[in-house]
């Protein structure tokens, strides 16, 4: 049928036992191109749903119990083993670099929300100058929010110091001022959790949501 790929890790890491993946398909391990792959023998992935996203993530999480794999994005499917091998060999160096970066580390997420921010639509029923002014005002507010988000991310990175191996900042959408990912060494996760919970007191008026640990989805080159 084909191979659906969940994640890749260093060769020789333990295989999952009795694990089920997307749509209940069994998960197997396969050694190819010097890597251990977590795969399901199945047809191409169906459209993503929350259940399928959870199933994909469940396999990656299981693979992350002892080592840190590189998670694949949902939907990576190959018609044959040789096609998968060729894709891996094409990217061998990039994959090796990414694996080295995330080795023995996990990802944490920080989502920062400004409850005062309102992304109101321009007023209905107006036209011409008033409408354009409303649009310009909204754009100015959005730019200020982006700048503030960057400042918060930088301040948080400085506050955490050496507890963070790498930081990535992204636009979180959905009323989020900024969304930040931290790559943290496994042995530092306890200290990281304790330290980060002290940070919100320094940023009055903002709401912080902390999640993790996650496999390092945000610390792989997308086109690895």
């Amino acid at each position, binding site marked *: 049928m084909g191979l659906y790929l969940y994640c890749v890790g260093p060769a020789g890491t333990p295989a999952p036992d009795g694990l089920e993946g997307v749509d209940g398909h069994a998960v197997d391990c396969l050694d190819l191109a010097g890597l251990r792959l977590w795969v399901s023998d199945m047809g191409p992935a169906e459209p993503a*749903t929350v259940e399928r996203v959870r199933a994909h993530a469940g396999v990656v999480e299981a693979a992350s119990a002892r080592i840190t794999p590189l998670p694949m994005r949902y939907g990576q499917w190959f018609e044959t083993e040789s096609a998968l091998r060729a894709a891996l060999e094409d990217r061998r160096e990039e994959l090796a670099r990414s694996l080295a970066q995330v080795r023995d580390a996990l990802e944490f997420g920080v989502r920062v929300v400004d409850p005062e921010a309102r992304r109101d639509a321009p007023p209905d029923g107006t036209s011409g100058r008033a409408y354009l002014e409303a649009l310009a005002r909204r754009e100015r507010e959005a730019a200020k929010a982006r700048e503030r988000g960057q400042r918060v991310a930088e301040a948080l990175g400085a506050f955490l110091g050496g507890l963070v191996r790498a930081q990535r900042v992204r636009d979180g959408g959905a009323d989020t001022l900024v969304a930040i990912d931290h790559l943290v060494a496994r042995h530092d996760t306890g200290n990281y959790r304790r330290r980060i919970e002290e940070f919100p007191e320094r940023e009055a008026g903002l709401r912080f949501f902390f999640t993790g640990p996650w496999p390092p989805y945000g610390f792989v080159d997308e086109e690895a």
Partner: protein
Amino acid sequence: MNSRAALDERVSLVELVDRVLDRGVVLRGDVTISVAGVDLVYLQLHLLLSGVEALGRKDPTPLPGPGDA
């Protein structure tokens, strides 16, 4: 479930969906994945976040424990 717990759970779900659908390694860029029912997650997040102000400001959300995320 109270509104705070519901909000925390929704944020975790959005973080999960963001990761699995928008990040991670892409070996095959030609795979097109349509999304069924996932936009709803963002809509629900928006609605829940609009209630954040009412939850109070001096009470940072604690980190979820292992497996909660």
